[in-house]
């Protein structure tokens, strides 16, 4: 038996089909955000992907160098720093996740304590900005060789105290260039590195296993007292200033905090 499908039935059936068409199973934004960041980061990001496998032997060597606390030649350091195109910053991949030093104590914040963001800017020589989402800082320190500003948020509602840093959040700011290395990070296989769009640029988010980081002096030497493990961290540059946010928050929250820079 057959029946004629008149115009009304056809239209009704088409609308019925529309109501039953499947949409995406999950939120698409994280995947789209990654694609945007990857496209923005080219060619640096694509280079990183290509070189990850081939980078392993180099990383192993670097790990030994790091553990031994030896110095890297400026030229070699420059080449690595360019991988992520973050001024003043190097990120190494190392074959094993770094572990805390025995009897490691919570970090102490070096530099001159200042009482206001404006004063920090005057000492540092650049405009210091703070993320409004974190509220008022608990303490601000400025170092001058090389220049860097450390802003400490001892306790922020909703952000747990970091087991590594002993506070809710730390923001570090410095005016780096691709030719100068002020801070370095060593990340093992348990640490994830994601690129996300932020403002008109790209931010890099380190999460998972704590990674190791340390500051360098003006000669490029490791400052041993600054060598420590760090938790989830977002890194980005804006207006010639490199920013580092360390806080035990997820990617979305880290981006939200970074976007509130005033």
């Amino acid at each position, binding site marked *: *038996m057959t029946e004629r499908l008149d*115009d009304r039935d056809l239209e009704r059936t088409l609308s019925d089909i529309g109501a*039953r068409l499947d949409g995406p199973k999950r939120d698409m*934004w994280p*995947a789209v955000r990654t694609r945007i960041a990857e496209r923005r980061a080219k060619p640096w990001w694509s280079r990183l992907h290509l070189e990850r496998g081939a980078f392993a032997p180099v990383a192993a060597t670097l790990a030994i160098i790091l553990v031994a606390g030896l110095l890297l030649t400026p030229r070699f350091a420059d080449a690595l720093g360019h991988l992520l195109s973050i001024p003043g910053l190097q990120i190494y991949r190392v074959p094993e996740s770094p572990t805390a030093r025995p009897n490691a104590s919570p970090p102490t914040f070096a530099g001159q304590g200042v009482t206001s963001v404006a004063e920090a800017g005057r000492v540092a020589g650049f405009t210091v900005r703070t993320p409004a989402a974190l509220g008022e800082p608990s303490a601000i320190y400025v170092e001058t060789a090389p220049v860097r500003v450390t802003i400490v948020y001892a306790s922020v509602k909703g952000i747990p105290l970091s087991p590594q840093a002993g506070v809710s959040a730390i923001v570090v700011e410095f005016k780096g260039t691709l030719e100068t290395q002020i801070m370095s990070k060593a990340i093992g296989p348990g640490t994830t590195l994601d690129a996300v769009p932020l403002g008109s640029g790209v931010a890099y988010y380190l999460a998972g296993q704590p990674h190791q980081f340390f500051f360098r002096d003006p000669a490029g030497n490791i400052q041993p007292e600054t060598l420590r493990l760090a938790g989830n961290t977002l890194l980005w540059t804006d207006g010639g200033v490199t920013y580092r946010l360390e806080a035990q928050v997820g990617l979305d929250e880290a981006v939200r905090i970074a976007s509130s820079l005033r």
Partner: protein
Amino acid sequence: MEGRPAEDAVLVERAQHGDTEAYGELVRRYQALATRTAYVITGLSTEAEDAAQDGFTKAYFALARFRTGAPFRPWLLRIVANEAKNRRKAAGRRPTVDLSVAEDRPSGDTALSPEEAALASERRTFVLGALGKLREEDRLVIAYRYFMQLSEAEMADALGCARGTVKSRLSRALARLREVAGGEVSAGD
């Protein structure tokens, strides 16, 4: 965000000024429409999601060229549709597609008897089969009207044609659908 959701234009402007999370809100708002648009073209749900994601990415980088005051939805769908078409062309697949819908989803018309529900299901299968044999452009104009309920103005923007031609394009597409369907549907044994 609390209260009424922000207008598309507000979110677009924020995204144009570097607020990527505003763009994220637009992605969440239109991901279903974008995926359906791509699905009608590719006929493969996994590829449709991928094409939609690439479409959103391309649209993001094209935001600077987005005309202030223009509707965002059809502009986005045009980009997504182009992305899906390019994928189909690159894959060199045959012109027909196999479309399917979730049959286990409760119908909007709860007053259907079991017999009527069975008939409606057969009609869907039949029409989907005919739809899959249409040209891509015909599928798209039908989808915009019946699957996504776009207005004529939005359809014109999304299809890249004059507003006055939307009706005739839809009419021709429906005529071809009827022709392919042969005007008849099995109503059971």
